[in-house]
């Protein structure tokens, strides 16, 4: 029995077919069913213009941004196993990651650098989409969703910045949250709501933790879903017409 026939046998088993519906075979019908019958993949059309998959029109910036998001979700969940959102335990957890947890430093590095990369890539993606005119009708609304995703990315990065509870994070968030004071009429109220007090303190750490690990990622996942679904609804990735 070769590996190929082994796979075919698995794909023909009752269990596999109950999960994925389509059995063995690699015809275009099977491949179409692989997309249509998958909760995640059915956001996409079954076929895609081959020119949209080339490097030149997109530089793969959207795919790279999504890749960093995946890496952030995985490393973020692993980091949550070692983290307590309380003062001063949060900082002690950083030290534990450094000296006690196996590969703890690597894990934190990966999460932090991926976060910086995602902010940069989201900006780069936006400029690339603008310069090739991919925001034009009928794709207007997807551009707007993209702007909100950029803001979500910044908020995710900003709330995560406080979590290590070191001097760098404390004062960076203090500087940032002081800007909120300047908002007329409700500036102080907004800052109080964000920080859970008048200072950056243990309450603020807890609020930023909940925002960073629950509320903002859920919002991002929802908007990313809509962002991808709209690509399909708006006629696929934009590729300029061929010049004859």
């Amino acid at each position, binding site marked *: 029995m070769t590996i190929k026939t082994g796979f075919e046998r698995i794909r023909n088993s009752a269990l596999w077919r109950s999960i994925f519906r389509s059995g063995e075979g690699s015809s275009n019908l099977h491949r179409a069913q692989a997309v249509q019958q998958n909760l995640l*993949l059915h956001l996409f059309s079954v076929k895609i213009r081959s020119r949209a998959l080339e490097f030149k029109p997109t530089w793969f910036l959207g795919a790279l941004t999504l890749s960093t998001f995946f890496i952030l979700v995985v490393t973020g969940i692993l980091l949550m196993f070692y983290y307590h959102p309380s003062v001063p335990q949060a900082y002690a957890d950083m030290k534990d990651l450094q000296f006690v947890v196996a590969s703890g430093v690597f894990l*934190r590095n990966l999460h932090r*650098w991926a976060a910086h990369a995602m902010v940069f890539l989201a900006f780069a993606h936006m400029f690339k989409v603008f310069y090739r005119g991919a925001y034009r009708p009928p794709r207007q609304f997807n551009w707007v969703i993209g702007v909100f995703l950029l803001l979500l990315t910044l908020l995710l990065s900003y709330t995560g910045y406080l979590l290590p509870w070191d001097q*760098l994070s404390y004062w960076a968030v203090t*500087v940032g949250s002081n800007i909120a004071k300047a908002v007329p009429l409700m500036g102080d109220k907004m800052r109080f709501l964000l920080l859970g007090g008048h200072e*950056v303190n243990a309450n603020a750490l807890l609020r930023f933790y909940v925002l960073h690990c629950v509320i903002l990622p859920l919002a991002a996942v929802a908007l990313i879903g809509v962002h991808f679904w709209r690509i399909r609804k708006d006629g696929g990735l934009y590729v300029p017409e061929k010049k004859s």
Partner: protein
Amino acid sequence: MSDEPKERAELQSDVRKNPRRIAFITRRTSPQVRTQDDARVMTYPTALLKFIVVLQVAFLALVWWSLTVNAPLEGIADPMHTPNPAKAPWYFLGLQDLLHYFPPMVAGVLIPGLVVAALIVIPYFNINIEGRSIWAKPAHRPWVMAAVPLFTVLIFLLFAIPQFTHGDGALPAVDRFLDLFVPIVPTLLVGGALLLSSRYSPQSPKPFQRWLAGKPLSFWIMTWFMVELIVLTAVGTFFRGPGWSWVLPWRSY
């Protein structure tokens, strides 16, 4: 029998508005348009495989980065001890640099608010729909030529006025000089390139000249915004030290 000709040919000269095509429509038949048929591939497995490759490239690059550079970790947060300078995360340092010039109401609320609003409305205002060059209409030429220097002066005044009104007397002359002239650099660069592009023909044999001459207004505005964003962020990240004074990034302070 009518006098109408059996066939009719029509030719439009503006290719952008009316794609050039000749239609011969014979009586008792209907016109048929052949749409552009792009080659298509299956999403599964072709596109999915390509995404997985991109994901792995990103992952490998980040793993390499994480193995070579450690994330910063300073001492435990101490509300009683303010570092000088206290800096926001890097992507907000452009904003923080604006805070050095303008009151928080302007730099922290008005400008970011306007930027976000401008980004949202871009696709709803016929911006760049045709991608027509800013020099396409000769009648607009003098207006554009006048607008660029005017805009430059306006930006210069915008950054200069706060300097003279609240006058940071504590800063040395070099700092005040740099404060005055660095924020105008992106405007000078992009405005200069814009004026330069007026001298090039869209039919120029040189690709770069042709490329520059064909750019629409929206390209110039977005490019100005992008260069301003990059310069202010770089200044805030690398060239600002204690009391938001100018420093060289390789000197310790």
